[in-house]
């Protein structure tokens, strides 16, 4: 097939700049590729030249599919970096192929019956190449989206995933929480009954409150409620005569903070679901 398509390859090699310029003019004003309109013309032409040069590389390669990657991956990365939507990047490829044929047609490359036969073979070759490039483009695009999402929710994912603690993640989390709550009970008892003060020790309670909301979402709010009830009961038992106001505010803040964090985690979990959808 490659020998028949040689005429087309010669034309492309020789006139890559011209075809790319023609394509750039087309893609920059096409209704289905509006993002290209705002790019510098030289950048767009450069993209086109890279695509047209790929033909020769692919025709010389033993594995054309692998050769196509040298263009399609870079093209995908460049378009993604420029925030061009995938369907536009895809349609720009379609226009690249069409402009190639328009140019060949305009130059009267395939006139005789034999040349018409060559045209069919060249068309088949072009389509095959286009099939490869479009497949690699969409695959790469989604890979790039995944990497981006991974980066954005990566650190939070580490916190919420059971795998952070190995296979027995849930058991470890429960054990850590029990220790923290026991610590909170001891601290409350010590400060209220021994020191008779309700000073800043309650700030430490935000550690189990936030962790429980991160790990268990809405269910984690029970830890905040438990700690709120703990300081109120302890106050009633050991700090008789001292106004309740401060501890009531503290208890309410525990529940509010626990609620806000678990609400935020709901959003993060949904983002994670989306990430899994992308992963396929």
């Amino acid at each position: 097939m490659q020998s028949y398509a040689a005429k087309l390859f010669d034309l492309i090699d020789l006139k890559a700049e011209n075809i790319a310029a023609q394509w750039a003019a087309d893609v920059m004003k096409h209704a289905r590729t509006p993002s290209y309109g705002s790019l510098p013309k030289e950048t767009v032409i450069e993209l086109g030249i890279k695509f047209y040069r790929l033909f020769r590389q692919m025709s010389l390669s033993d594995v054309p599919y692998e050769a196509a990657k040298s263009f399609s991956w870079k093209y995908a990365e460049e378009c993604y970096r420029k925030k061009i939507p995938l369907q536009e990047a895809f349609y720009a490829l379609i226009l690249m192929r069409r402009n190639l044929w328009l140019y060949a047609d305009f130059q009267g490359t395939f006139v005789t019956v034999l040349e018409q036969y060559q045209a069919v073979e060249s068309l088949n070759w072009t389509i095959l190449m286009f099939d490869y490039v479009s497949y690699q483009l969409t695959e790469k695009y989604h890979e790039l989206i995944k990497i981006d999402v991974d980066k954005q929710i990566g650190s939070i994912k580490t916190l919420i995933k059971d795998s952070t603690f190995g296979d027995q993640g849930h058991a470890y989390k429960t054990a850590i929480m029990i220790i923290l709550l026991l610590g909170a009970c001891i601290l409350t008892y010590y400060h209220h009954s021994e020191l008779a003060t309700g000073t800043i020790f309650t700030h430490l309670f935000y550690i189990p409150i936030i962790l429980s909301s991160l790990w268990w979402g809405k269910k984690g709010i029970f830890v905040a409620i438990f700690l709120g009830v703990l300081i109120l009961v302890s106050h009633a038992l050991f700090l008789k005569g001292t106004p309740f106001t401060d501890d009531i505010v503290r208890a309410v803040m525990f529940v509010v903070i626990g609620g806000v964090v678990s609400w935020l985690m709901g959003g993060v979990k949904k983002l994670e679901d989306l990430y899994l959808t992308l992963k396929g």
Partner: protein
Amino acid sequence: MLSSLKLLDLMANSAESIARQWAKDVGRNPKTPYYHTIDQDDIIPQAVEFYQKLSRVYTDKDPFTAIQRFMGKFAEERFQEGVPLHQALYAIVLMRRHIWLYAEFQAIFITIVEQQQAMDSLTRTILMFDYIAYALTEKYEALLKCNYKNNKRG
């Protein structure tokens, strides 16, 4: 465009046979691993429907709107099934190839005039599949965005 009618007839009348061959191919093609574990009989109807709908819009003067409509539904179904876009796209590429493989096997383009018809049909088919692939990609991206926005709101 009229010379494409031969291929159109073939597509409408032999949709099931072409779909059956496509299902076999897509079920073992390395670029479409999603389909490897699915029963062939389950995916044949979607290809039959695709070929039948395509044959209906094949001779339209402006097929893009009709294609956008039927591909919207097709894309939504594939998205819900969890087919990655590049694999859904390649499955479409295989659908196109199987129309031609079937046409070649049935030897519908033999004489010189028929060869000319083949060239016209090829050009028309490519145009149709350009629209189809674009509509599929556009819808998939819209669904992804919609999903993302819903997740953010929820």
